[in-house]
């Protein structure tokens, strides 16, 4: 009885007591999803600001941007686009497999996604090292002789693809954790919102690249 009156004095404790007593699991998939979307909006704003900066500078230095972009290897850019699109497919397939309780297939698809992400980063590494080798980096010898438009282009190129690359790395870590959850049956066919959220993040990274590709590689 005394315990009960104590609980009454603390409304919060009462709620906890009540739910524990019924063995009710605290879970709100819809809330979890909404939180993920709200986070993605902040990501959109982060990249959106950079895209706006790109747009404004490209408007002012159209010629310099064209000259600078001519040096880009659009083939590698296209390959990376296909790689990311395919990795988005495998994440979507992984969720579909999880819903059907195909644990192994879901894990296999996520392994494939991680391989795609790593392949993307390797391509990026070769691309960046090629440009840095040519002296195109902040304070580099080649960049110093360029026009303002070209300097701005490469500045934005490094910041935007760099930030995007960072997101790819974070996405890979995120998916890695999700795979551990799946392996330990913390994610199941009826409880997979964590996987869904990782998927949302990965697709956002894909969407950002969908815009980066034509803006940095396909200027003619």
């Amino acid at each position, binding site marked *: 009885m005394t315990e009960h009156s104590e609980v009454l004095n603390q409304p919060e404790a009462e709620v906890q007591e009540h739910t524990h007593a*019924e*063995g*009710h*699991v605290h*879970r709100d*998939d*819809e809330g979890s*999803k*909404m939180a993920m*979307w*709200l986070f993605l*909006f902040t990501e*959109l*704003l982060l990249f*959106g600001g950079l895209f*706006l900066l790109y*747009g*404004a500078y490209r*408007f*002012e230095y159209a010629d310099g941007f064209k000259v600078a972009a001519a040096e880009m290897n*659009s083939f590698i850019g*296209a390959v990376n*686009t*296909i790689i990311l*699109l*395919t990795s*988005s*497919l495998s*994440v*979507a*397939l992984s969720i*579909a497999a999880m*819903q*059907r309780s195909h644990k192994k297939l879901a894990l296999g698809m996520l392994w494939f996604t991680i391989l795609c992400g790593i392949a993307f980063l390797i391509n990026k590494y070769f691309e960046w090292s090629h440009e840095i080798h040519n002296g195109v980096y902040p304070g580099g010898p080649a960049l110093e002789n360029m026009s303002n438009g070209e300097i701005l282009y490469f500045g934005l190129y490094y910041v935007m693809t760099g930030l995007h690359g960072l997101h790819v790395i974070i996405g890979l870590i995120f998916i890695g954790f999700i795979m551990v959850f799946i392996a330990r049956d913390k994610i199941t066919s*009826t*409880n*997979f*919102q964590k996987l*869904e959220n990782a*998927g*949302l993040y990965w*697709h956002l990274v*894909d*969407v950002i690249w*969908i*815009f980066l*590709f*034509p*803006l940095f590689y*396909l*200027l*003619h």
Partner: protein
Amino acid sequence: MSEQIHTGEMTAGQAHAAAHGEAEHSHAGAHAGGHMVGYGTYFMVWLGLVALTAVTVTIAGIQLGSLTLLTAMLIASVKTALVGYHFMHIKYDNKIIKVFILVCLVIFLTFWILTFSDLSFR
């Protein structure tokens, strides 16, 4: 204990499905936030995305002048819509999430319009 938890989950899931059923009947019976989509659908969306990428690269090779950027951005928007609608499951999301996304896009678009109306008429 585990059975207890299970039943707890089930009732939560059923309540959710019922709540969903009112808003979207196609959702009835489906688990919270989950709608079964066939593997084939995802493959078709992927094919479409790859095809659109090919179109973007091809169009960039043709001299279209100022239209090049416009078409590239239009295609990128269509690709984004495909990824969002199918891969990110916006198609099956609650109305509130759809409204949130729309509001976010409108705000984003407003930034662009304001900035470029400034840049263009200086």
